[in-house]
């Protein structure tokens, strides 16, 4: 029922005047509720702050650990002598004038001094190069991944710093050696597996240390670790960008060449189906290849610094220690039983000349020329 507001006004005033219609004092009650409200407000601020901090931490965590495409190796194309792609397993050689950049995994920057040569190895977050000669100035971002420089058996290991590594050949009265000079500008690095030294050598900021490695030790390391191929194998096993790893059966082999350096050899790939020769170094290995050369995967045999690959087409390929990618032009195609002449000097294959395809009934041994 709608009442007349004028009548209602007099009605209410009469209730006050004649009936004592007044409120109880509500001051204490409202103030008590205000204090409760204050406590809720403080708690809400605290909870809001905690929620905001948690949301921020979550956002930062997601940003940091959200799977990004891992950047592959990048380098000036002129560093690749044969014009191939820059990838794990690629050998880079600098000219005599320029300093050139190589970037690995988005967290390693290498400045290659003139006349330096290295091979890219490693894997995701475990970047690695194998330094043959020259000077590298390296800058590694912290907390992003590992980085190693292998020089023969020695490894310079770092997780985040700026340092330089220099490798130079030197001839002493007793032997030809490689001098490894490590100088650190920031942070520290660890040098491991120095022949003749036990434990790990630490080089800290402002320090320089020189380590000596003989060529014999380098050769032994190459035999033990399969040299650059091992680096590529590591990369393939751990999932290189564009790489592929396959466990392969051994292939019958020629005799190892490294035991008879400086002597040209004639190598004859084994005939398919033949027995493995005695003294073979054949063993299961993994081989990295490029995506466009999948068909070239096959059985691999390493003998010293020379590798044979039998592909699925029945052809044999032969390649050097320094050129491990199947697309490399220094690969030679040998049909089964076809011979080639290999010049091996100081543990390094210096020349490979294939012989004309032979008549049937091939042998499986290595024969001195």
């Amino acid at each position, binding site marked *: 029922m*709608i009442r007349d*507001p004028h*009548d209602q006004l007099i009605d209410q005033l009469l209730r006050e005047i004649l009936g004592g219609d007044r409120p109880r004092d509500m*001051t204490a009650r409202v*103030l008590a509720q*205000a204090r409760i409200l204050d406590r809720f407000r403080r708690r809400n601020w605290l909870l809001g702050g905690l929620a905001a901090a948690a949301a921020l931490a979550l956002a930062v965590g997601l940003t940091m650990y959200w799977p990004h495409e891992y950047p592959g190796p990048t380098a000036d194309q002129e560093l690749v002598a044969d014009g191939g792609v820059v990838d794990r397993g690629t050998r880079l050689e600098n000219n005599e004038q320029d300093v050139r950049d190589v970037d690995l995994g988005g967290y390693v920057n290498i400045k290659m001094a003139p006349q330096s040569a290295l091979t890219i190895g490693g894997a995701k977050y475990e970047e690695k190069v194998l330094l043959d000669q020259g000077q590298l100035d390296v800058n590694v971002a912290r907390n992003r991944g590992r980085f190693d420089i292998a020089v023969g058996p020695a490894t310079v290991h770092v997780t985040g710093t700026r340092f330089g590594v220099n490798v130079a050949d030197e001839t002493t009265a007793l032997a030809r050696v490689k001098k490894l000079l490590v100088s650190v500008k920031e942070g520290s690095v660890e040098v491991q597996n120095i022949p003749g030294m036990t434990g790990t050598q630490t080089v800290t900021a402002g320090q320089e240390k020189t380590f000596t490695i003989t060529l014999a030790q380098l050769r032994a390391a190459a035999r033990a670790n399969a040299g650059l191929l091992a680096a590529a194998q590591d990369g393939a096993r751990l999932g290189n960008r564009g790489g592929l790893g396959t466990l392969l059966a051994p292939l019958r082999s020629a005799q190892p060449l490294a035991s008879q350096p400086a002597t040209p050899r004639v190598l004859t790939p084994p005939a398919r189906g033949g027995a493995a020769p005695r003294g073979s170094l054949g063993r299961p290995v993994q081989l990295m290849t490029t995506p466009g050369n999948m068909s070239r995967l096959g059985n691999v045999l390493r003998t010293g610094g020379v590798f044979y690959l039998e592909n699925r087409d029945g052809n044999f390929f032969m390649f050097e220690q320094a050129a491990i990618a199947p697309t490399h032009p220094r690969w030679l195609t040998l049909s089964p039983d076809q011979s080639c002449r290999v010049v091996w000097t100081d543990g390094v294959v210096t020349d490979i000349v294939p012989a004309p395809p032979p008549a049937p009934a091939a042998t499986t041994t290595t024969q001195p020329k």
Partner: protein
Amino acid sequence: MTHDTLELLIRTHQAMVYRYLRYMGAAPDVAEDVAQETFLATYKSSSVPLEDAAAEGGRCAAWLRGVARNQLLMYFRKARSNPVSSDPVVLEQALDEADEVFHSELLRNSDGFDYHEALQACLGKMQGTQRQVLDMFYGEEFSRAQIGQTLHMSEDGVKSFLRRVRAALRKCVLGRLGIADKLDGLDSAGPALPIGGGG
């Protein structure tokens, strides 16, 4: 807003807010609850005009009545029934109209104290049955049926008589305040009784 300011607001305006809410149709317990909610809402707000918080007729008082009106409207909407109207549109219109009368007739840009004083003076002049019925209804809180039984009147007769007495009081008040031109809203109540008569 500090607790001291809130206390000042409550002590200064709680009677006015309560009166306003009762006038708008709230029962006594509802008016107290809504008044408390009004002051708590004021405490939470950051836009209270506090410059005349200690004055009963200023902007702060008007602001509080606005909050009280909205709080009461929310209460009526939530409640299953209310004494004004079940139609939400009619309810809001009725509250607006009552608010307008409250401002224009009781307050008149002041605190309404003069209106209160004039009503008391008019009541003082009232005698006989008129005063007796008012005392029984408002002072003793007799029901209309009880009053009718005592005075040998019907219940509707008591109701009509009360309305005419209130109209007479209003006419007296407006006359005392010199604002008799505001004499409207009396049509439904019938002719006002002369104050001082025996009824």
